[in-house]
């Protein structure tokens, strides 16, 4: 596969993933993940080069294995998930500057910049969540699936709102 067509395939997956997250189609979003072990994390806020440390060494904002990610999605879908009910945050995921694409057999890794905006009805203004993502994809049955999504935000403090109750 040429570099250009792989890049295009990755971009398609990222755009689909962003749309599912922004539309709160949580089950479809979860369906983009690979079978087997997975990792979904948001790294530490106040730690430079946080991506060199694991969630066992420093306080991440969140770190989900398969069980917890599935539970997170179940929880977020409930009307009793008060932080996002009855009116959910409106989010907009933007990915740019896709780079460092590396292929090792069926596994593809890359880095991409991320800018998520988040608007809440009961909170004036728009929260801007800038950062980058280290993705690991796996090709399973011909399709690209997400195996790891490790997000590192350019924030010291989580503010307006100070919680992470959306899919980043």
């Amino acid at each position: 596969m040429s570099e250009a067509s792989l890049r295009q395939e990755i971009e398609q997956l990222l755009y689909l993933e962003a749309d599912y997250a922004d539309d709160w189609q949580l089950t479809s979003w979860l369906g983009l993940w690979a079978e087997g072990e997975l990792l979904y994390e948001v790294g530490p806020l106040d730690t430079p080069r946080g991506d060199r440390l694991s969630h066992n060494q420093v306080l991440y904002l969140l770190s989900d294995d398969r069980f917890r990610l599935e539970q997170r999605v179940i929880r977020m879908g409930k009307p009793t998930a008060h932080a996002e009910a009855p009116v959910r945050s409106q989010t907009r995921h933007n990915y740019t500057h896709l780079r460092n694409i590396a292929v090792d057999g069926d596994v593809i890794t890359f880095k991409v910049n991320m800018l998520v905006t988040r608007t809440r009805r009961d909170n004036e203004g728009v929260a801007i969540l800038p950062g980058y993502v280290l993705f690991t994809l796996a090709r399973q049955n011909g399709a690209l699936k997400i195996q790891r999504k490790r997000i590192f935000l350019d924030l010291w403090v989580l503010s307006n709102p100070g919680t992470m109750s959306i899919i980043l």
Partner: protein
Amino acid sequence: MSRIGQHQSRFLQYDPQNHIFRVHRDAYASPEVFAEEKQKILYKSWIVLGHETEIAKPGDFVTRRVIDRELIFNRDSAGNVNVFFNSCMHRGPAVCKHKEGKASVFVCPYHGWVYKNDGYLASTGSTKADAGYPAAYLQRGEGAVRLQRIKNAAQRAGFYFVNFDENAGPLDDYLQGAGARLDRMALQTTAGFEMIAGVHEYDISANYKLLCENSYDGYHLMQTHATYLDYVKEILKGSNLDPKLGGTVMTLGNGHGAFEIPVLSGRPVAQWLPHWGEEARLLLEAKRNEVIGRLGEELGANVCDMNSNMVIFPNSVINDQQTILARTIIPLSHNRMRVRAWTIAPKDEHPKLREIRMENILSFLGPGGFATPDDVSMLEWAQTGYETTNVAWNDFSKGMTPDETPQNSTAVYDDEMQMRAYWLQWDKMMSGD
């Protein structure tokens, strides 16, 4: 004439005979009250600053805000612990811009004054510059220039506190029963504690006292945390643990209070969950035996099996749950706070148990967990209710009895006695000059 115990003030309706305890919402929603409480309460109380493990070695320092004061907390080269205001004695800038590190001197970036890590001025930039000042400035006697120290800094069970009141009494007197609760946490290990790197720092658009109340409010668990309790059921599948809510609330004197409820979701000291696997089971069994062997059956089981959330009046929250988690609250204004949550763990913890601790923290606690975001929403919505309606009073009457002594007593876990004790203390301090 008021009956015994009955009490009506600007902020309180306290009527034990009629089972009424109400707090005026101005206590949360008025900028003027906030300014007043800063003077009368926040600057006069002992506030958690950090933990001794952060400044274990000579030269170690952290910089930190307490209430609205910027501080340097360090251990100097002679091994003494200091808390300084982080401001140059010449004309003001912070002399340390790093969050943490090791330093033998602090150098002001503006004109280059150099302070030793015990705070004394060592140089004003050059010998030539030094000549322009009284010789006493650079000597350690009378007239010496030194970073301004907070006189009242003290520790209990490794937790360091400061009090900005020059005339404050001793920390241990202030803590009363809260001190013994801190001692109890320290019983988890004989090896001492270490700070886990990183903090959860997040803002909440609500008065800081709302988070204090929420931290030991057993009554809200079923409702606010319905989704978290569903998750707990899921992780307890296949175990014989029964995720029942229960336990007690207690008042500890001087407005401090705690609740103690059975562990729901396992913890590294020391309760096992099936999905952690066999290796973890053996390690946790060994840890449990160690604790019980050392402390005896009753105290040992209490240390292993009970979660305890404590509010040290007025704004320090120390939770002993999946981990020991301190939430120091910076009240930014009457309707906004910054939470700084950090955690300590036994130094001798097995790596597998540390892994479990970290996972456990992330699933429940913190702004990305399965519980905290819902709490935060409740607090913000409560604050909005105070600011957008004319309703004047909040109710804290649950479980009240005519003969209740609101200090140093216990009640069932979902009563509001601990909050009544908090507010009685708050009201008492606000009623003084």
